[in-house]
Structure formats: structure tokens, C-alpha cells
């Protein structure tokens, strides 16, 4: 059914910035405090209060613009977007309209067909968030303005995506970048990264775009995919029946997985933007841009390439490690200390990740620092301990915060490889198990595993497996 039409998707993402204070006043931006406790005359929209721009918001917008290859506007303006809604105390939202801070950017995504595709970014502008409306009380609606005036970036893409999968790939990439940059905490549940999707269909041979529906404020990747897929089917059915799609705003209903029209919002699109006389023009110099460029961190794509070439690990490992900046930083610090790229990636993706998952800690709070873990991995490489014992030492380090060497010494975990110690143990085992020895000598060679097991048991896992094997085989065969 769908092959007749091409899907066209453009996305608008609202990114909440991680500044300490609001965009136009010095109230805190913390989430979840007592209603209206973080408000002042500016964000309450009281008459006579004057907004003053938070410089960090501009820094963050420039940083994001640079990371997405945008042109940074030397001059930009703030505008009033006029509409009435109880969560908007001033009767207008301060936003940017004609002259946004960033334009003409792009982002690369990997499609499911394994191709790299460029998605255009039309613009990035700064604006204030609205307050929060609570509908669950009896007679009226309640308004909490703690969120009012919280800084947002709106990132608008070109209508370059052709499937819900491409839309999700774009969103994940964008999410990864803003979190990497540290400009957004990336928390979807708390609304730090919210998405509106413009979806339309057109016959495959048609050049003009079809009429689009706008899907509003969906806050999980899964729901965005569901909403788009539903919308594509809905529009295809309308077109198949010879009907016309109405341009409108639609809400996604998470309970039914469907979208429904928001009635009577057409009038609200007449926003009568005009420059905000309270906010003077914003001029961004080349020097300012260069200063921000210096703080641009290494982005995931570049990091992945570097991990592969510099540390010699498989691309898969590099992608897993670079997915989150904190994990990548941990791995980077570990390899710089220890040197063996693959051993380090195995440990970070294995033991470290497992222990973090079990404890629910973020990697930034990992009780075993990269330098400490490097100390442990060195002891594997120089054969002081086996990989298996190392896991035991790691757990000890995790719980006690002590170094690997301390734990190895205290618990006597040093690997036993000198023959003077191993030979008597083997004598003991061979003497205790004459039947197995006979069977082995009669040809049942897989019993070797049994002898190794016995020796490991007696040495509490400390015997060097290579030395042990060698001695066992020699003794069993020699006395046959």
C-alpha cells in the first residue's frame, strides 16, 4: 500500500539547556521543586519587569551550531510570538523569528540500508519555555511557572527524512550530540528533549510536497516512531480514497497508538511576530565564535574513528564505547594509562558495564577509577593473576576502593606458576586419584580437565593454567 507514496518528514526538536538559571532572569531551572518557588517578576510576566539575556544560552547555541555545521549569524534578534494560553503569563513567548542565531547546518545519519545520509538543519533558535498546566484538579486548571522562561533551543530540520527509521536515526544522533556537548541533560522523561514531527506523503513521481500534519510534543523515540507510522498509514488511506489531507496539528495518544486532531488551533497560527523592544540586538563577533570553537569537544564520529585507528579496536567496540561521552572518557583514560586497547575495551564493555548496571551508578561515579583499573589490567598482562581471578579482584576494588596490588597481596591471589610449588600439588592429586590416572593412561585424555579442576581447587584458582597444563601432561604421559 505504502510503496505508491513517498514519506516526507521534517522534525522540530526542543532542547532544554543545562544552564543554572533561566534565559531572561536569575531564577534557578531545577526540575521538580515546589510549584512557583522559582519565579520572579520577569518569568511571572509582571508589568514593568525587564528580561536580560543569559550569556551562557548564547554560548550553548553557538556551540550547537558549530557542532552541526551551521552558519552563526553575526546579528540576530529576539521576537515576540503572540498567543494566549494560561501557561504563558506574558501573552507572548520570547523567541527568534526572522534572524535566528544559527542557520544552514547539517547532520549525517546512517540509514538501515547502511548508507550515510545528510539531513539538513534549517535553523537553530533560542527561546523561552512556557509554564506547566496541571489539569487533574476539580474545577480549574493549575499553573506552575517554575518552567516558564527556562532556556530552549529549537532545532528545525529540512524535510529530508523519508521514513520513521530515518527520523529516529536523526533524533538519536542529535540527542547524542547535544548530550556530548553538555548543553542538554538528554532526559526524555523530564521533557529535556521534545520532538514535533511534520509528516506528509506524495506520489513517488510528484515533485511538490503533499499537505502535512504536525505531530506535537512526543517525548520518547519509540512513541515518535509509532506516531509517524500511524500518521503515514492514516494519510495513505485518505489519499487512496481520493481524499485530501488537512493541514493541522495532531496529538499522539500513547494509550491507543493513534493520532487525533487538535481542534480549533488554526487561529493560533497567527502569531503576529515582531521584534521584542525589551531585548537589544545580539551581535556575535568572529572572536566569540572562535573562542567557543576551542571548547568544542571531540564528537562521536571522530572519536569512533580515532579509537579504531589509534587503539586498534573493532569498530563495533568503538561505537559502543563512544555512544556516551562519559564512557568514552573513561575508556580513553584507561587506555592512556594501560596501553592495550582491546583488553581495555573488553573490560569497560564487560565487567565495568555489568557492575555499573547492577549498582545503577553512572560511569562518572564508578568506584574503580580508570587508573586503578589500569593497575589491575597490568597484573593480568604480566601474569601476576589470571583473567578469572582479576574479576574477583575487581569486585574487591569496587567494594573497598583499594588498589589491585593491595587486594592481590592481602588475599594472596598472586598466580602460582613456579614449578617448585605446582609439582607437589600435582603429586598429591595423582596419588589421591589412581583410578582417573589409570583411565587417562588408557586413552581417556579428556580427563585432563578433571585434573586441572582439582589443581585449581587446591590452589583456590591461583595456579597459572599454562604452567599447570604443561606439568600435568608431562607427568601423566611420562609415568605411563
Amino acid at each position, binding site marked *: 500500500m505504502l510503496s505508491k507514496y513517498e514519506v516526507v518528514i521534517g522534525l522540530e526538536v526542543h532542547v532544554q539547556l543545562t544552564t543554572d538559571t533561566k534565559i531572561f532572569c*536569575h531564577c534557578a531551572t531545577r526540575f521538580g521543586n*515546589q510549584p*512557583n518557588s522559582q*519565579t520572579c517578576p520577569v518569568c511571572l510576566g509582571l508589568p514593568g519587569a525587564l528580561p536580560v539575556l543569559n550569556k*551562557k544560552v548564547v554560548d550553548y547555541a553557538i556551540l550547537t551550531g558549530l557542532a552541526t555545521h551551521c552558519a552563526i549569524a553575526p546579528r540576530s534578534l529576539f521576537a515576540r510570538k503572540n498567543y*494566549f*494560553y494560561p501557561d504563558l503569563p506574558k501573552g507572548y513567548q520570547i523567541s527568534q523569528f526572522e534572524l535566528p542565531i544559527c542557520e544552514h547546518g547539517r547532520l549525517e545519519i546512517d540509514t538501515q540500508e547502511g548508507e550515510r545520509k545528510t539531513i539538513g538543519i534549517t535553523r537553530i533558535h533560542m527561546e523561552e519555555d512556557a509554564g506547566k498546566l496541571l489539569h487533574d484538579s476539580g474545577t*480549574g486548571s493549575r*499553573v506552575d511557572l517554575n518552567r516558564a522562561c527556562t532556556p530552549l533551543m529549537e532545532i528545525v530540520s529540512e524535510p529530508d527524512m523519508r521514513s520513521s527509521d530515518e527520523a529516529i536515526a536523526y533524533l538519536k544522533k542529535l540527542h547524542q550530540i547535544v548530550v556530548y556537548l553538555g548543553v542538554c541533560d538528554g532526559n526524555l522523561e523530564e521533557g529535556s528533549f521534545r520532538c514535533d514531527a511534520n509528516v506528509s506523503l506524495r506520489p513517488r513521481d510528484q515533485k511538490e510536497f503533499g499537505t502535512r500534519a504536525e505531530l506535537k510534543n512526543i517525548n520518547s523515540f519509540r512513541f515518535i516512531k509509532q506516531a509517524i507510522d500511524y500518521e503515514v498509514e492514516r494519510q495513505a488511506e485518505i489519499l487512496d480514497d481520493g481524499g485530501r489531507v488537512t493541514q493541522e496539528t495532531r496529538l499522539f495518544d500513547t494509550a491507543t497508538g493513534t493520532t487525533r486532531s*487538535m481542534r480549533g488551533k488554526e487561529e493560533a497560527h497567527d502569531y503576529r511576530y515582531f521584534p521584542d523592544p525589551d531585548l537589544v540586538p545580539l551581535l556575535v563577533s568572529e572572536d566569540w565564535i572562535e573562542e567557543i570553537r576551542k571548547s568544542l569537544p571531540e564528537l562521536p564520529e571522530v572519536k569512533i574513528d580515532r579509537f579504531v585507528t589509534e587503539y586498534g579496536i573493532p569498530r563495533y567496540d568503538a561505537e559502543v564505547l563512544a555512544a556516551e561521552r562519559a564512557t568514552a572518557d573513561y575508556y580513553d583514560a584507561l587506555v592512556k594509562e594501560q596501553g592495550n586497547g582491546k583488553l581495555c575495551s573488553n573490560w569497560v564493555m564487560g565487567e565495568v558495564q555489568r557492575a555499573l548496571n547492577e549498582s545503577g551508578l553512572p560511569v562518572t561515579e564508578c568506584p574503580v577509577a580508570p587508573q586503578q583499573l589500569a593497575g589491575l589490567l597490568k597484573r593480568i598482562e604480566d601474569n601476576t593473576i589470571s583473567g578469572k581471578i582479576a574479576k574477583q579482584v575487581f569486585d574487591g576494588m569496587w567494594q573497598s576502593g583499594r588498589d589491585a596490588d593491595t587486594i592481590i597481596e592481602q588475599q594472596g591471589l598472586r598466580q602460582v606458576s613456579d614449578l617448585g610449588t605446582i609439582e607437589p600439588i600435582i603429586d598429591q592429586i595423582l596419588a589421591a586419584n589412581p583410578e582417573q590416572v589409570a583411565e587417562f593412561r588408557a586413552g581417556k585424555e579428556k580427563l585432563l580437565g578433571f585434573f586441572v579442576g582439582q589443581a585449581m581447587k587446591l590452589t583456590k584458582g591461583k595456579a597459572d593454567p599454562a604452567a599447570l597444563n604443561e606439568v600435568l601432561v608431562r607427568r601423566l604421559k611420562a609415568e605411563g
Partner: protein
Amino acid sequence: MNITREQVEHVARLARLALADEELDALTGEMDAILGYVEKLNNLDTDHIVPTAHAVPMENAFRDDRIGPSLGTEKAVSNAPEAADGCFVVPKVIE
């Protein structure tokens, strides 16, 4: 005529102004006169003039990202016609 009665009605509705018929008529005439006056600008060549967004030649007024005191819940809602549990209460918004 630069502006129609319907346009004035539309703008009034957007601004949530309830206007009587006589008011609409009067305002249509007044707004038309204002637009006619501004219309004179169209006789000038403004191609190379940067649009004036502000009357004062000033730019880049910033504040640092430092937390200052807020009013607090009690003060914030103290002038509200209706408040409950620290929230402003408004007529029910139906979606």
C-alpha cells in the same frame, strides 16, 4: 481603504478584545488612517537600509548564569485571584 472591517475584527479577536459595532467602525477608520500615514514610507527607497528593530542604538546586554533570589511560592501567587497548593488557578483549559 487599506484595511477592512473583517481584518480589524480578526485582530481584535486575536487580542481577545470584544468590540461593539460602533467601535469596530470607528477603529477601522482610525487604523486605516494610521496605515495610510505609514504608507508614505513606500515612496522612499529603503532597499539598503537595515530594518530598525530598536529605537536605541544598543546591543549585547547580558547577564551571567548565576542564580539569584526568587520570590518564592507564597509571594508569587499572593496577587492571584485564585490559588491552590502554590499554583495559580485558572478556568479549566479543555483540549
